[in-house]
């Protein structure tokens, strides 16, 4: 393989406590701690391992998000990625628009493999990889828990309900990563310093000729209701009676 393209997303840090905006339009991200989406981090790690095994020449990372997402890209560069592109936009971009932007980046970079997280932990959409594969007409393997590259084909193990499924894909292909694929590395200090000097290109959605207009309407975002206190029942028949009364049985 020559190039592996890894799209990465900046998300609210998993340790941060999300605050819902008072107008119920979404989560208030101002001043919140942001991080690389864990599934994306796994994708970067896997791409680097393929490169370090001599199976790919370069790893290119791309992100679509606000200017702050440069830090997410810098982290991927510190892990070992070679170059980065940020498509800068402040608004939330829907999965289909993300997939279309990525298709345009694929056209530019001509990668042999697009390796990306199966979903982002903020909206849990789990759509981008699949949509991208469909737009490109490439084979896809989602939820990868193991990836091997042999004789010009990718061998991908997926975790499915019935057990493990093994797929063999020709290149180019789209692979999305599951949580157990690998454990991402800690960045070494010299690599963090070097990452500042690696190329990071910044563009806008318009540069890629993609319409990112919203197709979905968010009605309201509300925090989950607090847990109600329970009641204590004396007998089993009382419990059954209460469950009947509540229409559960």
């Amino acid at each position, binding site marked *: 393989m020559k190039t592996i393209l890894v799209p990465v997303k900046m998300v609210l840090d998993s340790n941060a406590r999300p605050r819902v905006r008072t107008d119920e339009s979404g989560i208030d991200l*101002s*001043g919140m701690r942001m991080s690389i989406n864990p599934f994306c981090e796994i994708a970067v790690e896997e791409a680097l391992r393929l490169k370090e095994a001599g199976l790919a020449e370069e790893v290119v990372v791309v992100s679509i998000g606000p200017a702050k997402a440069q*830090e997410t890209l810098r*982290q991927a560069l510190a892990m070992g990625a070679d170059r980065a592109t940020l498509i800068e936009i402040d608004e939330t971009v829907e999965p289909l628009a993300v997939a279309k932007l990525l298709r345009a980046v694929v056209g530019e970079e001509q990668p042999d493999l697009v390796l990306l997280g199966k979903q982002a932990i903020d909206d849990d959409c789990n759509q981008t990889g699949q949509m991208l594969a469909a737009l490109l007409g490439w084979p896809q393997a989602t939820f990868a828990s193991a990836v091997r590259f042999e004789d010009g084909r990718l061998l991908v193990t997926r975790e499915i309900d019935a057990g493990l499924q093994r797929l063999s894909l020709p290149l180019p292909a789209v692979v999305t990563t599951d949580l157990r694929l690998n454990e991402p590395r800690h960045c070494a*200090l*010299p690599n*963090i310093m070097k990452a*500042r000097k690696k190329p990071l290109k910044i563009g806008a959605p318009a540069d890629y000729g993609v319409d990112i207009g919203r197709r979905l309407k968010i009605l309201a975002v509300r925090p989950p209701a607090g847990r109600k206190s329970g009641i204590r029942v004396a007998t089993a028949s009382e419990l059954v009676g209460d469950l009947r009364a509540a229409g559960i049985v």
Partner: protein
Amino acid sequence: MPSYKAPVEDMMFVLKDVLGAGQVFAEIPAYVEIDTDVVGNVLEEAGRFCAEILQPLNMSGDAEGCRLEDGVVRTPKGFAEAYAAFSDAGWGGLSASPEHGGQGLPRTVQILVDEMLSAANLSFGLFPGLTRGAYEAIEAHGDETLKALYLPKMIAGTWTGAMALTEGGAGSDLGLLKATAAPRGDGSYTVTGSKIFISSGDHDMAENVIHLVLARLPGAPAGTRGISLFLCPKFLPDRDGAPGVRNAISVGALEHKMGIHAQPTCVMNYDGCQGWLVGEEHRGLAAMFTMMNAERLFVGVQGLGVADASYQTAATYARERLQGRATDGAGTAPIIAHPDVRRMLLSMLSFIEAGRALSLFTALEMDKEKFHPDPEIRRVSGGLVALLTPVIKAALTDFGFEAAVLGQQVLGGHGYIREWGQEQFVRDARIAMIYEGTNGIQAQDLVVRKLPLDGGRPVRMFLGLIRETVEQAEGVAEAAALRVAVGEALAHLELVTARLIDGDLAGSGERNAAATDYLRLFALVAFGWLWLRMTLTVVTMGENADAHARRKIAVGRFFAGRVLPQAGALARQIGAGSAALMGLDAGDF
């Protein structure tokens, strides 16, 4: 189970917004490539390493401790692997000079990583901390051969360092030490003596241990002016610089301690081992003292780090633990609803954030002192560093220990049992008040040596900076109460300072008696000043200040109302003079 998250946002707020470190770095040629973004990246990753790799070993390391087996020290399970990962990632060379393989980052960044290390695992943090102290001493005073042989390995963490100063009969007064060194005629020396309390004296985490040993040459003058510094490696490097023959250095015993159980504090015997002189003959103590400011800053932030770790657990616990009813509501409340629990948490938090700001202010002055192109700025910064070093070492470890006790108290019985880790913080924090010069010695240093330094210019300069901020705060509504409180406390400090420099408390007995209370008063005023600066910064940021930054206004108000008034009481205590201490005959104790 305790967990730790490095407070990178708070650190960056002080560094970038309050102190404007980006501007300072830009003025320093050695740091032109260091912007605050890269500092943020480094801190994030260091925080991740500390939280994910070092913190999980903190309680297990404490429970297991170190063992001495057949003359070799074994560190607790997981420590050697963690140390290898730490060194492989290059963390040991963070602020070391690029000439010998370091990354050349500012002291300011080093001190923040030191805080994280101390919070996550104090016992572990001492290994790289002491190695740094040793390689900085070799770099400053060693000859080119020693530097070429030892610096790259120590900066890479392949070899670690140990500082062998204290002996059974020579602690705070090193002039009494008895270890000897005799020339061998080949440029090296035979070093003989026994040293106690040697941190990282021996272990199984790296392939060599480099001891810096203080000893006397034949015919050396008595006292501190007859002490020389020797480099004694555990294994003598062979022709290729690899560890070769075992030197005559042995571990006499492991000290049995109250805390930092995972840190091998050794009794070391130097049984006629081979060593090399570092620096000039009889100038060993002076050579060690050039490292002292940095080392003492490091020890100060150990108190700070442990306090923050304890705070994080206490705050989490207080939000979740349901006990008692809130004063204004019905139903069982989380204990954080109770004002007395708030008092404990806020006492901790208001110390931690101001203590961090003071250590960063000083570290930034150290960076200027070392690298700023303007000699006048270097001189002024040097004065401030000298003045503030004993304050940081003593105040941050005293308040840090007190904070750890409060963090234990918040958890009640659960703070006393081991499960939550709070009692370990109390035990671990205690040592920082004692080693690297006891806090009593620090207070003497402040009053006897640092106040009169350079004709009193550094202290006048520092108090002037505080006065300036108080004036700046005039008319700022959010800072009104804090401004008044800092102004009052500063007036007490100015008065007592004048009495100590050339007034009724200037005699040596009076200075000695006043020192500890004076250092505490000094620290409280400095903390108040930094709360005022943090508050003004948030106010200036206006709309750009997020909720996390805005909460500092409330913490600053707590400090103004509930902590700073102690300044008045301390000033009165000091005013009572030595008579109250010396009234009892020694025989009557």
